């Protein structure tokens, strides 16, 4: 074997099928006897359902069935569960209103599922869906979380008359208040973290089939975590034995969080497939994605940072109102709490922090984790505060950060996390150099000559990946484990199939994980295949989200590999008549230490499956091992971003001219893939900062931004080419030293962009997204004020 595969820019194994149109996404699956579902969705944000008439739809050509919430209730179909219990400051559990897959009694957001039509073709189903007559009594709606808690606001759920799901807090309030009282300077910001719609380019889809032969179901679904989907669906909603349901998440066209959850459509098609005895497929069109995929962010925050006269941080106080939408989506409750408040220390030694969060129901689509999930919101709070504080205290924004960086590890934050390792000075220093901050004044001057305003902004983020360990997460309210599983199946001729509970929907696991395995076993990468996304093949899995796959899923694979090598040593010892303790494994060879005796991996594998010369009295034949890995801690990727913008003061048009990102992801397996993850994350982060905004009409609750024409995900000419680099402090508690990289860009970019814009304009506040119109208005208001 040549050079190590760890750290190599290996071209992706999965690319050939994607480039030739041979990928198999859920909508590509066509089953014999296929039928199609179309959902009748509420056109109102809040309405009583007085009656539903199915007759006309049932008579339409090709229609097989129409089901409503009543039918599901009669079929004993339960509500969609929430996977994380938050206990409020009052000691009470969060309010968990029923979340029926098809509405019962009331519709609570535009797009809420009211009925489903199943027909021979998709067109027939969609046509007939228009014929289902629903008599609504329209109720007043509220879409803004801050307004939903006011007296007299319409109440969505009987169990939460004030629309509050919970009020939760973290940190020592008294100590924080005391520190603020002594501060020589306080920086205060009122921040809105704008609501986003994830918009993976593959719309959600589900296709379920029931087999009478063995009373079993198969569900193909665009999911990031098929086992979790199966567990929630069987145990909580359909009451089916888990072993009778197979969930397959084939090629999935992007997720970004939006495909983690158990959705109503998945449940309904699965249930209906048995009622009809035929496979039922549903594929969202984009308009449905906009109204029914779980949205992201939507925080309103008042944040304060207390400092001494030298700009040393003394305390932080944060009050956030989080919009959770009309119902609790699968992980909605932990995003603005466990994944948010715990990140407020950032990269700094702020000794005391207090954060209080109120989660609120509104007549909007459910809000859940979207790329970064709580951590972008936290980073935005911290890094907007820090940059603003530097300006107010007339300190260089890099200098104020350096004065407050955590420098010794492990470091216990005041918000429950224990950072194992990091070197924040290294990433900041590298980013400053890469961004040519020294040359910025000249560029600013040159831009001014052209009548343009140039600004520079920093963001030093931290994130926590691979939520763990399970028992601590459980104590914090998690209703699931947070481990990962992996299995290595060595075939008799020495090639290897790896089964992982992680799921790839663009991350390139089929390559990265194969690099790890091929490197460790010392074999060509072509001999290793990665299988994921099928509960009938993979022993278990928690799936892919929170940048956890390499750190948790990758480690499970390494643990299984260790077992393979350990068993291989026993077999090799027997074959070479040596002591097991004398066997070393090196680059595909089992060797007897200090001799030239060796057996190739393939020979040992063959002996395991053709055990003629084999210690059968002591050892089972075969070479197949699995491992479950539950991490002992989170991993803590961190990095420094520098953004440089140029603004046309006449139009407000803002261009990101330069973006430099230096991340510390620990050890990196495939730099090419990691860079791609950073580019994508940065673009979503820049999208949040500049172009993307989910807007509901405040009166009617209609989604105004319901198409790619109204909701602007970045296009190629909205973003620059990026400069990206890495520094490396290996994670201390997993064998690969890896931390995860999937969300970093989306976490760090928004604050860097907004800090650059406020620098260019010399203003304190700039709402996101900083569209041309918004920037133009701020410039005008600023001129008037001056």
């Amino acid at each position, binding site marked *: 074997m040549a050079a190590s595969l760890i750290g190599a820019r290996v071209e992706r194994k999965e690319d050939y099928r*994607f*480039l030739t*149109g041979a990928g198999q996404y859920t*909508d590509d699956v066509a089953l014999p006897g296929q039928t199609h579902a179309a959902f009748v969705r509420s056109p109102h944000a809040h309405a009583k359902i007085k009656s539903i008439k199915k007759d006309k739809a049932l008579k339409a050509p090709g229609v097989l069935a129409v089901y409503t919430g009543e039918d599901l209730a009669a079929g004993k179909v339960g509500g969609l569960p929430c996977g994380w219990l938050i206990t409020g400051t009052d000691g009470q559990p969060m309010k968990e209103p029923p979340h029926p897959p098809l509405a019962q009694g009331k519709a609570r957001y535009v797009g809420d599922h009211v009925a489903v039509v199943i027909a021979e073709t998709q067109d027939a189903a969609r046509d007939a869906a228009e014929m289902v007559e629903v008599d609504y009594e329209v109720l007043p709606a509220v879409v803004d979380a801050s307004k939903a808690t006011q007296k007299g606001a319409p109440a969505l759920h009987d169990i939460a008359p004030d629309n509050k799901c919970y009020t939760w807090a973290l940190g020592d309030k008294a100590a924080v208040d005391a520190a603020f009282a002594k501060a020589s300077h306080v920086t205060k910001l009122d921040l809105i973290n704008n609501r986003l719609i994830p918009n993976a380019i593959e719309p959600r889809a589900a296709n379920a089939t029931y087999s009478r032969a063995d009373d079993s179901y198969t569900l193909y679904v665009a999911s990031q975590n098929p086992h979790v989907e199966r567990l929630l669906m069987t145990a909580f909603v359909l009451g089916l034995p888990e072993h009778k349901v197979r969930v397959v998440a084939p090629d999935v066209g992007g997720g970004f969080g939006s495909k983690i959850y158990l959705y109503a459509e998945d449940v309904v098609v699965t249930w209906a497939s048995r009622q009809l005895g035929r496979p039922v497929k549903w594929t969202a069109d984009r308009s449905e994605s906009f109204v029914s995929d779980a949205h992201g962010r939507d925080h309103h925050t008042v944040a304060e940072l207390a400092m001494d006269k030298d700009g040393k941080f003394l305390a932080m106080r944060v009050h956030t109102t989080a919009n959770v939408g009309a119902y609790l989506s699968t992980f909605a409750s932990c995003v603005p709490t466990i994944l948010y408040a715990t990140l407020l220390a950032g990269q700094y030694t702020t000794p005391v922090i207090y954060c209080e969060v109120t989660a609120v129901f509104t007549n909007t689509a459910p809000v859940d984790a979207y790329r970064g999930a709580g951590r972008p919101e936290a980073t935005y709070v911290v890094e907007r505060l820090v940059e603003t504080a530097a300006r107010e205290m007339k300190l260089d924004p890099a200098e104020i950060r350096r004065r407050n960086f955590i420098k010794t590890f492990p470091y216990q934050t005041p918000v429950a996390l224990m950072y194992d390792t990091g070197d924040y000075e290294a990433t900041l220093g590298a980013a400053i150099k890469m961004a040519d901050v020294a040359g910025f004044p000249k560029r600013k001057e040159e831009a001014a000559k052209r009548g343009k305003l140039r600004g520079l902004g920093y963001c030093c983020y931290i994130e926590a990946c691979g939520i763990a360990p399970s028992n601590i997460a459980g104590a914090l309210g998690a209703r699931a484990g947070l481990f990962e599983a992996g299995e290595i199946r060595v075939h008799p001729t020495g090639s290897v199939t790896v089964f992982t509970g992680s799921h790839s929907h*663009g991350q390139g696991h089929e390559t990265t994980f194969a690099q790890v395995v091929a490197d460790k076993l010392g074999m060509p990468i072509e001999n290793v295949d990665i299988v994921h996304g099928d509960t009938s093949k993979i022993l278990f899995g928690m799936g892919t989200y929170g940048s956890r796959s390499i750190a948790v899923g990758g480690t499970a694979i390494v643990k299984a590999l260790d077992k393979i090598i350990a068993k291989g040593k026993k077999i090799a010892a027997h074959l070479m008549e040596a002591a097991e303790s004398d066997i070393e494994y090196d680059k595909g060879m089992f060797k007897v230490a200090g001799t030239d005796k060796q057996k190739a991996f393939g020979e040992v594998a063959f002996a395991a499956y053709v055990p003629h010369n084999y210690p059968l009295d002591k050892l089972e034949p075969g070479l197949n091992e699995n491992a479950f890995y539950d991490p002992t801690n989170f991993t803590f990727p961190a990095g420094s971003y520098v953004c440089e913008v140029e603004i046309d003061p006449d139009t407000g048009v803002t261009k990101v001219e330069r973006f430099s990102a230096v991340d510390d992801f620990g050890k990196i397996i495939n730099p090419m893939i990691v860079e791609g993850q950073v580019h994508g994350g940065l673009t979503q982060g820049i999208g949040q900062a500049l172009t993307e905004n989910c807007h509901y009409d405040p009166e009617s609750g209609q989604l105004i931004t319901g198409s*790619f024409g109204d909701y602007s*995900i970045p296009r*190629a000419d909205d*973003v620059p080419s990026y400069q990206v680099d890495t520094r490396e402090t290996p994670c201390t508690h997993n064998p690969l030293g890896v931390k995860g990289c999937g969300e970093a860009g989306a976490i760090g970019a928004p604050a860097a962009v907004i800090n650059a814009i406020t620098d260019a304009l010399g203003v304190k506040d700039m709402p996101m997204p900083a569209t041309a119109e918004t920037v133009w208005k701020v410039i005008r208001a600023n001129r008037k004020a001056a």
Partner: protein
Amino acid sequence: MAVKVSMKVNGKSVSGEVEARTLLVTFIREHLRLTGTHVGCDTAQCGACTVQMNGKVVKSCSILAMQAEGADVLTIEGVAKADGTLHPMQAAFKEHHGLQCGFCTPGMVMSAIDFAKNSPGASEKEVREALEGNLCRCTGYHNIVKAIMAGSKAMAAAK
């Protein structure tokens, strides 16, 4: 009402009965089972359904199957050589990691090939502007732009 349509797809004569309202993309995906052409939106903005029709790129979600009567259509399945060798643009996407989840990729490649043919030697800015009609949510476009510049060069060299 059912209508009969006939056309050439990837060099093969095909025909089928469709409804008058059937879109070209539906005909390609559902009738011909060529599922490499994707549907990512319903407003002709994402470009995942891009194919070539009579030598020009079109969004197959914006054309009725009937409108393609007698046309010569090329989908992503017909881009690589018969022996499986990738087209230089496909190869460039692989080499430069111009794809992640793969869903927008067929449309991106179809658009890129057309652009490279018509605008050889284009600048990065021109490539970015040319991609206005193709949305990608994974790559941030950085590597797609690199791939198209490289693929464009490779196509010119292969002429």
